[in-house]
Structures are given as structure tokens and as C-alpha cells.
């Protein structure tokens, strides 16, 4: 008999996306006033669609308020989406099993998450080996087996089990705690790991250690990553494909080379140009964008980026751009990329 907690075999084959997300929507009502009625709606994630291919690392970048963390929580089903479907390796998430669905309990065993705040996401009263062993035990492994697995994972993330297993989270450094979080995420042998700003709170030298570890673990355990970050350099380093979000929508998505070498969306270009140059002889002289990202409560009509875009024209306010295909899986939501959209530079970006 197969152990309840062995990695589950692949089902759909390599061509089937591990996770297919369609029409994902999450709106948060803002209540207020005397009667607590809904005053406004935060459109945190608005009609987002993407696939996560088996074995890849999909990077999601964007500024605060763009919906990247909400997307992470929706993928993990820590939040219930208002609309949209999620298909995990051919099975609809949270749907009836008889109709070919996968239960949330089983889905969450296959999909695990690592958070930015390494301290807040650990139970301060549990020794770390018990933190890691907790989920396997809940999922039916015996206490002994769970602890054995926890110790194996501690070794896998580079922490010697004999000196670390009985320690508490407050006795560890930030980098060590993030390793514990990663070990815990792997305890159920998941296929997909969602990493929400996993290295943003770490010092540079520790960040590099954790990034190397993530690369190693991906190969060792055959994982697929969704890597969320605001750090464009880190995303470029670790991702195979990159999704750029702006105000709850997909602005551009494509292979990492295409996004970084031939960015099509004006927002992607501005983001890339905002990176400090690292070379004092080539300092920036003009900021690529002015102002802050607008509030997602009342996003601009049409293209949501038009209020900060140097190429904005009437059509950008009037109509939402269609997703244009630039070839090779590189898609962009901009009127300039769609021939015949009515923008004076329409088609200038088409491949």
C-alpha cells in the first residue's frame, strides 16, 4: 500500500499545466457609515488568468497594492475568490470529487506556502521539529515517522537536526527561521510551493543563502514555484517566466528573457528602469515614473496604468486593452501592442 504521505504521482503529464487559473476575482468591500453598509470596493485582484507550468518558477512582480499577495492567498485558498476557476493538474479545486474535482484538504497538501515574516508564521511555543512534524501528523503519519521526517527536512534545509531540532523560533536568526518555514512547507511533499516575498526581510548575505537553497530544493524534490517579490533582480535570477501585475490586473507575462530584454508594457519598462544602477558613473537623472500607484478602490477606467503612462491617449481611457500575443508565450495588455486598437502607436510593439 502507498504511504499516505508519499509524493503523489504526476497525473496529467508534462504538457498539462500544474495550476491553471482563470478569471480570478477578489474584491474586498469597505464597510462604513452608521449602518455598516458597503461604501466602496477594493478591486484587489480583477480577472487574472495564468498557468503555472510543471517544474517551472513563475515570478510575480508588482508594487504594493497591485494584488500580488492577494493572488498568493487566493492560490492557497486562504481567501475565497469572488469568481474564477482554479484547475490543479486537471482537477477543479474545491469542486465535487465525483465530478473530477480535488478537495481543499487534498489540494492544500499539494500546495504549500512560505510567508515573508518568518517569525509571525511560526508557533513561538513549539520546538521547531514539532512545528515541521505537525502537518504530517495531522495527515496521518505516526508521531515517530513525523519527527523522523522533520529531522530529515531540517538536514535538507541546512540546519543540523541534533543542534536545532529542539530549539524555539526566538532562538534562531531570521535566515534560520525562513529555512524552518521552507522545511515546514515541504513536510507534506507538495508539488507547488507559493513563496510570498520569502527573502525580502533578510539581509543580503542571508538572502543569497536562501535563494541558493530554494534552487537546490527545487531540483531535489521536483518542485514548482510561484515566487512573489517586489525585487526585480531576485525575480530575474530565480524565475523561468514572469508575470507583471498592476492594480489587480496582469500587465505583461512572458519568459524571463523576453520580459527583461524586450519589455513591451510601459509599466514593465518603468519598473525595470527604476532599479538603482549599481554603477555610480551611470546614475539615473530622471525618474521613469512620477507619483505613486493609484488606490485600487477606484481604479482608472480603461487601461489602469494610463494615469502614470507617458503614452496615454484617449483610447486608453475609453477601452480596456486586450491581451496581445507577442509570440513565444509573451503577452501584454496594452493598446500599443494591438494593431487597430485606435492608439497612434498601435501595432508598434507587435512581433
Amino acid at each position: 500500500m502507498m504511504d499516505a504521505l508519499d509524493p503523489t504521482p504526476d497525473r496529467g503529464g508534462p504538457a498539462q499545466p500544474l495550476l491553471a487559473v482563470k478569471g480570478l476575482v477578489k474584491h474586498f468591500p469597505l464597510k462604513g457609515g452608521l449602518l455598516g453598509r458597503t461604501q466602496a470596493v477594493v478591486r484587489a485582484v480583477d480577472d487574472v488568468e495564468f498557468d503555472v507550468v510543471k517544474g517551472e518558477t513563475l515570478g510575480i512582480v508588482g508594487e504594493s497594492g497591485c494584488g500580488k499577495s492577494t493572488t498568493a492567498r487566493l492560490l492557497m485558498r486562504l481567501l475565497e475568490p469572488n469568481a474564477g476557476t482554479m484547475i490543479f493538474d486537471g482537477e477543479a479545486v474545491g469542486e465535487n470529487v465525483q465530478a473530477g474535482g480535488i478537495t481543499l484538504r487534498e489540494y492544500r497538501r499539494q500546495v504549500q506556502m512560505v510567508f515573508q515574516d518568518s517569525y509571525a508564521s511560526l508557533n513561538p511555543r513549539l520546538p521547531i521539529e514539532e512545528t515541521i512534524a505537525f502537518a504530517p501528523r495531522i495527515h496521518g503519519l505516526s508521531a515517530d515517522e513525523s519527527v523522523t521526517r522533520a529531522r530529515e527536512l531540517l538536514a535538507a534545509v541546512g540546519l543540523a537536526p541534533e543542534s536545532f531540532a529542539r530549539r524555539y523560533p526566538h532562538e534562531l536568526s531570521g535566515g534560520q527561521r525562513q529555512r524552518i518555514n521552507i522545511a515546514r512547507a515541504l513536510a507534506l511533499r507538495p508539488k507547488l510551493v507559493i513563496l510570498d516575498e520569502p527573502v525580502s526581510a533578510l539581509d543580503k548575505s542571508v538572502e543569497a543563502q536562501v535563494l541558493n537553497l530554494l534552487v537546490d530544493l527545487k531540483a531535489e524534490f521536483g518542485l514548482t514555484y510561484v515566487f512573489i517579490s517586489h525585487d526585480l533582480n531576485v525575480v530575474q535570477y530565480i524565475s523561468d517566466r514572469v508575470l507583471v501585475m498592476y492594480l489587480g490586473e496582469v500587465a505583461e507575462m512572458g519568459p524571463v528573457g523576453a520580459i527583461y530584454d524586450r519589455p513591451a508594457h510601459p509599466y514593465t519598462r518603468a519598473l525595470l528602469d527604476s532599479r538603482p544602477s549599481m554603477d555610480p558613473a551611470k546614475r539615473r537623472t530622471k525618474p521613469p515614473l512620477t507619483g505613486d500607484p493609484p488606490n485600487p478602490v477606484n481604479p482608472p477606467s480603461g487601461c489602469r496604468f494610463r494615469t502614470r503612462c507617458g503614452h496615454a491617449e484617449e483610447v486608453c481611457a475609453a477601452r480596456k486593452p486586450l491581451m496581445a500575443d507577442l509570440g513565444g508565450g509573451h503577452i501584454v495588455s496594452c493598446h500599443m501592442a494591438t494593431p487597430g486598437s485606435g492608439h497612434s502607436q498601435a501595432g508598434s510593439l507587435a512581433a
Partner: protein
Amino acid sequence: MSAALKTNAPPLVKLRDLHVTFKTRDRTVHAVNGVDLDLAAGEVLCILGESGSGKSVTLRALMKLLPKFAQIKGGIEVNGRDVNAMSNSQLADFRGGEVAMIFQEPMTALDPVFTVGRQIAETVQRHEGVSRATADARALELLELVQIPSAKRRLAAYPHELSGGLRQRAMIAVALACRPKLLLADEPTTALDATVQIQVLLLLRELQEKLDMGVIFVTHDLGVAGEIADKVAVMYAGRVVEEGPVSGLMAGPLHPYAQGLLGATVHPGMRGKRLTTIPGAPPMLDVAPTTCAFSPRCEYAEAACTAGVPALVEASPGRFARCVRVPKGV
């Protein structure tokens, strides 16, 4: 030591053998263990280091903003005045007048119950004794100086009504209200988004040139240092391990820690390559390091490293490093 001393102009900031020790009932932490720094008027110095390196403590010591239980030793001179010897009323004039500071979190640095305009005008009234109307006019000028759009309307805004980037600009306006000679910046762009961070950095650079201020900028981000600094001091375990012009440091750091830091910073073109890391973790600083504090993590460590604290040697004109392997230049 650095260029500032060789010329005749007195340095704006002169730190000599600064030690800061935090003593509580449970624990003693030797946060700063002998820092010498000079800053000339109109110069931008970046103090670069990881958490716990003592960079923020050094910055706060310059304004005597450390808690009472901190034991401070060494010479702290700003604009020719001994900061350590100042009385409370002298300090009140000094802070915000000659020296101002901006912080990482504008929301906690600004007062949430006063409008932005009032907070700026209050600083002007306190230090320059002008009328309220004059101060209000200055507040408007300052908001325009920091390039806040529709400045007139924003004077009446409370901090929570502004976006993160505008709040940071408002805090800069408060700091610049009395045209300080020295601006201390403690990671002011770390909490901002990429597209906003570059705006604030460029603004600070522009204002620094316009007002000819000396700036000490604390950051952990090499890229930020590359954008704004004239010279850089890299701190580790409470000491400066390397100091010199920013271009030299970025092109070829001398100290193994600075080399490790540069190698561990992810930048474009590193895809597919393994990142170089610095093994281990910084020391605890319960006791002041008596050897090279970096030697336990250093791949080049030798017997001489544990014989004592290496001296800061001038490797080439203007470039200093605290490492036994770096030879003294001629």
C-alpha cells in the same frame, strides 16, 4: 584621516573612536566599537551594513538620540560643536536646526493628529521665531521644494491621507524646514516601492546639491549607495571595515566582507549562476570583538587575523580597509 582633514576646511562631522554600549539588566551589547568618520560640508556618505552592524546606532549618536542606558564614549563633533557635552536646551536647538533626520517609516515619524502643513510650520516657528503666517508661507514653499503636487491643498492633509511616497516627501520637508547643514537619513527609501524609491532618491540628491547639505545616509542596499553616495563606509560588528569613494568600492572592494556583500547582491546577468554567499552569521557582540570580527566567516582567515583588531590602513589615496591582507599603499 580622509580628504576632509587634509584640506583646511573643518569637517562638518568628526567622529573619533566612538563606542556605544547598551547595558540592560539581562544583557550587554557592544553595538559600536570604535568608529572614526569624517564628513566634509556638502558631501554624501553612505554607511552600508547589515542589521546589527551598528550603522543606525552610529547615526543616532550624532544627534544624541540614543536611550539613557546607552553608554557613549568617544568624540562626536558636528559643525565644530561637541554633541556629547550639549545640555537638553542646546540639543533642542541643535536638533532640527543644524541637524535633521529622516526615518524609514514616515507614518511613525509624522504626528497623525496634525496636518502636514502645521507640522512643518511648527518647526519653522520653533527654530526661527517667526510669525505663524510667515511659517505657513514657508511650509508651502517647502512642500513645493520636495515636489509634492498640488502643494497648497496638501498643506491641510493629515499624514494618513497621503500615499507612502508623498508622506516620505512631507517628512523630508519637515527635516529641511530650517535648512540644516547636515541631514541624517536612516533607510528612508527601504519601505518604498521601486518606482517611488528612485523618485525619492533623485529628489534627495537634487535637494542635497541645491542646499549644499552634508548627508549621512544609512542603507543596506548597495544599489541605493551607488545612486546617491560620494563615499561609502562599510560597517561590520560595530566597526568600519572599509571606507572610500563609491566608485572604487563598487568596482573592486578591498575587504573580504565588502567583497562578499557585493557578490551576494543579486544583480542582472547572474541567472543560472550560483550566488556567492557569506557563510555563517554576524557575531553576537555580547563582548566587544578583540580580533577581526569577520575572521570566523572569512575564507582568507589566517593567524594574524586573531592576533588583534586589524588597523584601518590606507590602501590607496582615500581608500581605507581594516584587513591584515590589505597592504598599506604608498
